[in-house]
């Protein structure tokens, strides 16, 4: 293969990549037709020939998920029976999610925390190294079971402009999901240690 072909293709792609665009990046990513992006977006856990995995991924995207829902079916091999929710008296929310959330954000100032409604609201938080940016979190724990759907994190960030005015930044759904994953992981381990 002539190396010129490689360079030409790479140059073309980089040239296109340098084009300006201002539209919603999250929406664009959600419609990416790259094979790996389609597979990731579908949530399929299938392994094997890429063509077979792609067919499964497209089927899941077309139909809204698999037979048992959008996510891969979980195997409770380690006794994590969700019927055993280990409810604490008076708490209508999952205590591991609650404690996991508090431990995860304990370095941030808490504005309010209501264990009965399951709402944690932090104050604005900034660091010395990035004092031109500040963020706050709203965390909602919505049920008694330790599951993804019962946790919602909304992050809000602001940057200070030249006029010393804080300006809202675009909400990053991806970052919210990352934060949820950290809290869920923490909650899972708290539950294990309790058992």
């Amino acid at each position: 293969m002539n190396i010129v072909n490689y360079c030409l293709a790479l140059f073309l792609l980089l040239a296109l990549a340098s084009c300006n665009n201002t539209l919603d990046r999250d929406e664009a990513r959600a419609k990416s037709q790259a094979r790996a992006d389609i597979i990731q977006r579908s949530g399929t856990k299938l392994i094997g020939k890429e063509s077979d995995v792609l067919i499964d991924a497209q089927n899941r995207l077309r139909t809204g998920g698999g037979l048992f829902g959008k996510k891969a079916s979980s195997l409770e091999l380690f006794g994590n029976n969700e019927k055993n929710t280990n409810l604490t008296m008076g708490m209508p929310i999952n205590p591991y999610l609650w404690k996991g959330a508090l431990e995860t954000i304990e370095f941030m100032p808490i504005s309010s925390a209501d264990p009965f409604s399951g709402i944690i609201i932090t104050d604005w938080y900034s660091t010395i190294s990035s004092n031109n940016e500040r963020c706050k979190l709203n965390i909602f724990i919505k049920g008694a079971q330790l599951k993804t759907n019962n946790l919602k994190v909304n992050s809000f960030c602001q940057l200070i402009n030249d006029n010393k005015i804080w300006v809202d930044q675009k909400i990053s759904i991806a970052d919210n999901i990352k934060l949820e994953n950290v809290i869920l992981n923490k909650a899972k381990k708290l539950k294990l240690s309790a058992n």
Partner: protein
Amino acid sequence: MKKELLIASALVGSLGLAGVAEAASVSFAGNVRNGVTGDDTDSSSGGTHSSDQKASLTFSVEETTDAGTKISTGFNVFDEGADDAGNPSGLTLTFTDGSSLALVEAGNAATGRIATVPGASGEQGIAGVTSSANSAPTAITYGSTSDNVGFTYTSAADALGVEGLTFGVSAAFGDDPDGSISSTAEQSYSAGITYVTTAGDTTVTIGGGFINATDSNPNTINDKSDVVMASIAAVTGDLTVGAGFGSGSYVDGDTTEVDSMSITTVGAKYVSGDITFAVGASDAEAKDGAEGANGTNTDSLEKVSASVDYVVASGVTATVGYTDVSAVDENVSKTSFSGSSWYIGANISF
């Protein structure tokens, strides 16, 4: 600052919960495609009908560390006799910034980064055409291969500060027994890039990459794989259109030298409620030769396909597909591998 938050969380975890037993999330997923196909080749007066059944089942396990890195692996169970039966997935580390590192069962970064060109669904096709002496490729990724002893790094979205850019690089360093009757990929290098942008209401995905893999067979003159591929797809509302191109040379099977390979694919699909209409076409050719000899005569394969998918339920699609194939081997039209084929079946994901 989000990263700092995550790091701080990791510190909390390591200080307060060190030594806590880790639980792995175990899940399974599968896909079953059952249906019937009908072939009507140009060489036969009557068509043939047959069943077409494919099934796969994967068990996967993943765990997220306190630092947010997800470690995942798994293995699949395919129909007995299939090449990939029991094929494990290697290890994949997904980092908090969205980038990932695949270890083992890696080395082919290009194919995941190209844009998917819409095409007809279904399992229709003339039986035997892909296993015949016809070396023309059937997909723009055809001929791409690598050794498993390698890694693939895939960047997070918006890589290198460019919005919409994602890239992957991979390398593998296999060393298999040299032999004149067997051919496997050894040292493999691959890179791929995806760029997603928008123009008005249209989202455009552009992808491309290359794969180069040396051959364990010392008598072949081609590399095991030396291919480049590029594709583009555009989504406007319910309509998706795309085109792709692949080119290069490789060793097909163990001893067949394939040169001047090229393939062009185009396709479109339109979603109307629960129904998806799709059409696709490909035009491919290649020159093949015996071990140690350049290819001289041209093989070609032209396909035009269409399908209708109907969403029956979550995870279940009913498919009707049709394909017309025209095959040429060594400059001679092969009526036994040319003709039309149809498929009726269901695709079930769980």
